């Protein structure tokens, strides 16, 4: 902390332009960083009182934490949606209720789950920057190759299973050379399979419900792929995909994985690495009637850390980003959807992603799922990922793995809620 503080003092550039300099740390790199830089540059040119100094920061959660505790946080931090509750619990980010009220930023302007993502126990701590939903992405060329109709993606999990069977290709020795579908690819939402099957991760009050029958059923489905194709064969096949997402070796681009759950951003990567790929996106299949259009609500958020020196000016910039113009400029440049209900004429028409209407529709789905609003989510999510690993390598039955996570997390939830109660924040 002292080192950070010392270096901050030594490296602080002189501010001779008469503007208030707002420091803004953002996690993005590459094209996504260029998109936010475009917004920042536009804002800086649009007025002469505030200069936003944008910095791309890797490992932003840890660095923001350290900077806050060292007393030298940025004025704005671009965190991940699931971080918000933990950072609010730890008093690392400020409540934005009053600022939003004064600035005219209202919940009713946003698509509900994106506003909700920034709310913790009735207060707003974060505003959405770029939102996303997920859908089934499938390789149309492979559909045609195995005799499936590329205009008829699976609508139910049973259909998904049977299409996956047709699309999976193995050598006589059992070696997998192409998968139709793998629940562990890309493996970013291993927690979501339960909610996709109608389960919940906690009851919203004091009970971890990870081992509920719906969740067990979901992970039995996950394990069915290992049983069908061989846990070892699938592990070996998938091990080669690690670190290949943003590359031409991405298994969806290479045709090694015919169908996978992905977010609205996938278009960017297909466009970048294999623009000739014949692909499409559709709603993820329903596990049972009533669970149509399941999707993961995923988003990046903007927060003002506790101890920020220029809160008022930082919020002035946030007001611009959260305006219809600012959000559409950012989201269009990142080729995502906007978190606002109102959409300017031309946003959809000029959007390069041919499935943008689907992703917008999914944001309104009654079966959209988000990470639980728990300050212990980081640990809970890690436990779920480990259980997922145990299930796919078949070292445990789904029931055993889910029971273990539930038994481990329940005391942690109890303690977490007890602490909130002691602090009067429950």
């Amino acid at each position, binding site marked *: 902390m002292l080192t950070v503080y010392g270096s901050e003092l030594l490296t602080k550039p002189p501010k001779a332009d008469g503007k208030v300099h707002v420091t803004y740390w953002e996690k993005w790199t590459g094209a996504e960083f260029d998109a936010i830089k475009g917004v920042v540059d536009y804002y800086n040119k649009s007025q002469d009182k505030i200069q936003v100094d944008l910095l791309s920061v890797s490992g932003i959660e840890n660095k923001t934490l350290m900077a806050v505790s060292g007393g030298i946080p940025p004025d704005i931090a671009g965190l991940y949606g699931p971080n918000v509750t933990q950072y609010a619990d730890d008093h690392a980010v400020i409540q934005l209720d009053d600022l939003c009220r004064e600035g005219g930023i209202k919940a009713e302007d946003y698509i509900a789950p994106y506003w909700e993502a920034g709310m913790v126990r009735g207060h707003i701590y974060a505003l959405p920057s770029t939102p996303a939903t997920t859908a089934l992405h499938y390789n149309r060329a492979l559909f045609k190759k195995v005799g499936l109709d590329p205009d008829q993606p699976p609508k139910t999990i049973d259909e998904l299973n049977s299409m996956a069977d047709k699309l999976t290709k193995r050598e006589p020795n059992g070696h997998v050379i192409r998968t139709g579908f793998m629940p562990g690819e890309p493996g970013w939402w291993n927690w979501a399979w339960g909610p996709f099957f109608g389960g919940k991760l906690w009851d919203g009050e004091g009970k971890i419900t990870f081992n509920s029958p719906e969740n067990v059923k979901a992970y039995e489905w996950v394990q069915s792929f290992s049983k069908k194709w061989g846990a*070892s064969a699938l592990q*070996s096949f998938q091990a*080669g995909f690690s*670190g290949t997402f943003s590359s031409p070796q991405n298994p969806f681009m290479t045709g090694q994985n015919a169908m996978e759950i992905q977010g609205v951003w996938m278009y960017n990567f297909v466009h970048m690495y294999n623009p000739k790929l014949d692909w499409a996106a559709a709603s993820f299949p329903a596990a049972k009637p009533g669970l149509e259009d399941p999707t993961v609500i995923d988003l990046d958020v903007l927060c003002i850390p506790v101890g920020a020196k220029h809160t008022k000016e930082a919020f002035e910039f946030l007001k611009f980003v959260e305006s219809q113009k600012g959000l559409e400029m950012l989201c269009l440049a990142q080729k995502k959807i906007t978190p606002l209900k109102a959409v300017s004429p031309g946003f959809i028409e000029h959007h390069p992603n041919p499935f943008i209407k689907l992703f917008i529709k999914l944001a309104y789905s009654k079966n959209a799922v988000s990470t639980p609003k728990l300050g212990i989510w*980081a640990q809970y999510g890690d436990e779920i*990922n*480990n259980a997922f*690993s145990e299930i796919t390598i078949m070292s445990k039955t789904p029931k055993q793995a889910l029971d273990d996570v539930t038994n*481990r997390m329940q005391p942690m939830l109890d303690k977490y809620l007890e602490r909130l109660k002691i602090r009067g924040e429950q």
Partner: protein
Amino acid sequence: MKSISRKEAMAGYSFASPWLVGFLLFMAYPLAASIYFSLCDYSVLKAPVWVGLDNYAMLLHDELFWTALKNTMIYAVFALPAGMATAIILAMLLNSKVKGMAAYRTFFFIPSLVPQVSLAILWRWVLDGEHGVLNPLLNKLHIPGPNWLGDPHWVMPSLVIMAMWGVGNAMLIYLAGLQDVPVQLIEAADLDGATSWQKTKNVTLPMISPVILFNLVMGIIGSLQVFTVPYIMFPNGAPAHSTYFYTEYLFDNAFRYHKMGYASAMGWLMFVMILILTMFSLKMSEKHVHYQGS
């Protein structure tokens, strides 16, 4: 006289003050603070709340703590002797009088200069069960290559193999020790008709035993603190926590779960474990380590 010695002392402290200040601020204070934090519920961002020995008591009942500790111990038990044996053998080979020895020494030392993150990525390409370099070579020898990175039974051997890649530093220390072995002792053994193995066992190894002890202690400390390579190669200790090490759990508690008090307790437990193992090694070495001056 008194005034001169005081002046000298002041000058000495002044010259040493950059280190002293740095040590007090960046080592002594954090160390002392972490003892206090280990007895508190502390998230870094809020004031620590005293909980006594609660963190230590919770660790004893934390299943994941024991898994991480077990993984770390298994790794140390295999990686440490394997690394030491490799380093000694390489050092002995590189101590022989062969043309171009400087080039050979450089060649074997260079891998230890590779940054750990690069090393982790490099080994992924080598050990990948599907597309890696190693398995096709094994297949040519009619050995079926395992799923090095995905099979829980093979990930630990993979990490031990990778650890041997970085023995360059230890090898260099052994090499320096070997060059200090008195030539007359080797010549005396030659005159007595000793074989190469007898010379190694009865002369060379005893003469470099202080160096072996030093590398053993450093190896214990290093192997119990293994972090970077498994953290990069096996996120979340996958598969199924089979590569989840003590320091990874400590890091996660401190920086991901914001449980700095708990992490501090883990840090101090690790310190005690390393201290006990080091003391044990020193005690055991009394009969086996020979110092030239003694």
